[in-house]
């Protein structure tokens, strides 16, 4: 189970990489294992401003469907179009090529609510 120490996490099993005022978001290794084979990722909120914890998309795996939640309040700048043709990148490379959206963070106060790698590890009981 990979949980890179340089990333931040949510209890909904998303990871967040902060780069200035832009946050890149994806789902964790734990999440992709729980979901199983991803069939597609649907994100139709590009350009929208959403609050933390609002749904910005969904992941459909063979067995199940799961909502994607905003880890922080912000504007969806772009989504990973490579997932359109190769959704399994979420399974094979969840922290790099499997990223989902880039968000322009509008309220950085939410950053303190994110979990460290250590806290996330404790959260999933790994």
């Amino acid at each position, binding site marked *: 189970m990979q949980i890179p120490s340089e990333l931040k996490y949510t209890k909904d099993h998303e990871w967040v990489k902060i780069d200035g005022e832009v946050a890149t978001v994806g789902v964790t290794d734990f999440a992709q294992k729980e979901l*199983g*084979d991803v069939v597609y990722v649907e994100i139709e909120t590009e350009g929208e401003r959403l609050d933390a914890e609002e749904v910005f998309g969904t992941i*459909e795996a*063979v*067995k*199940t*469907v799961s909502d994607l939640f905003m880890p922080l309040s912000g504007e969806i700048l772009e989504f990973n179009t490579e997932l359109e043709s190769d959704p399994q990148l979420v399974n094979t490379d969840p922290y790099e090529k499997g990223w989902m959206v880039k968000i322009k963070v509008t309220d950085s106060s939410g950053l303190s609510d994110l979990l460290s790698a250590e806290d996330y590890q404790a959260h999933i009981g790994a």
Partner: protein
Amino acid sequence: MKQTALYNKHLELNAKMVDFAGYQMPLQYSGLTPEHHNVRKALGLFDVSHMGEFILEGEHALALIQKLTSNDASKLFDGKVQYSTLTNTKGGIIDDLLVYRFNATKYMLVVNASNIEKDLSWITAQNDLGVTIKDVSNQTSLLALQGPKAVELMSSIAGFNTAEMPYYTFKEIELQGHSIILSVTGYTGAGGFEIYCANDAAPVLWELLLSKGERFNILPCGLAARDTLRLEMGFCLYGNDIDDTTSPIEAGLGWITKFTKDFTARTIIEQHKTDGVSKKLIGFELEDRGIPRKGYDLVDADGSVIGRVTSGTMSPSLSKAIGMGYVDTQVLKEKQDFYVQIRNKRIKCKGVKFPFYKADV
């Protein structure tokens, strides 16, 4: 939570375990997709020991089975298996099950794990015929060896040509010193066997099948693949596609419902057949991106609800989203367009006759 006799084997194989019908069962090992394809193309081995087994013995065993099940068990002969349903007094389905005939006075019923207690209390309460009913579920393990290579593997270890056994028949044989029931059944549509054995024999036979099956690239397979495989065949899953409120006629199980004899709620169900039913279980595929899931609404062009999805998945063999669900009979009769409501989207469905997946023959 109960464990099957193969629990430790699953852990050794790093299976992802889930709670299912009171048991800790393997959901998947290497992954749903490889396991699914392996069963269609070669061979897979499943632990389905959670299933329930009842032995019915006595002079009137057949009479009791006839009274409680929808299919005509008098057609059974020694070594023959039959798919059937237990019906309730309202014409719904208590369970779907297999009926095995050992001889004229000994039968076995194989029922769904989630229904063991319900079935047993119903059958016991209805037993005014002095039949001995023994629940052997906890002592019995069940392995399913499924796939086109199953016959070759089984023949090599059973010491006879198992290809000669017709579909839905069984034999009591010795396999490596263990007494087993070798049954030409399964719920995958890929062919193969189900093997009933005592719990202590299960780990030995599991290992044996996996090691002898290596040359056929056998994979241990979990409940996830079992579900996509059965769904591609349009086979009903109890609790999803059929339940206490669905009539066998609505569920498309008229073929295992015989009005040549009497059984629980026969009059009601016969009425369903002659008068027609208001909803029917159908298969459909999606014409656009989306995956139907249990509980999603099926709607007409105006968005009015005309049915409900009972099972759905992305079919690994067909690479299409497929589903089963009950649809208003009128909509079907008029061949109206219908859609599945997936969150804020309406995706057009196309009715498909079962099975979704047709094996190359």
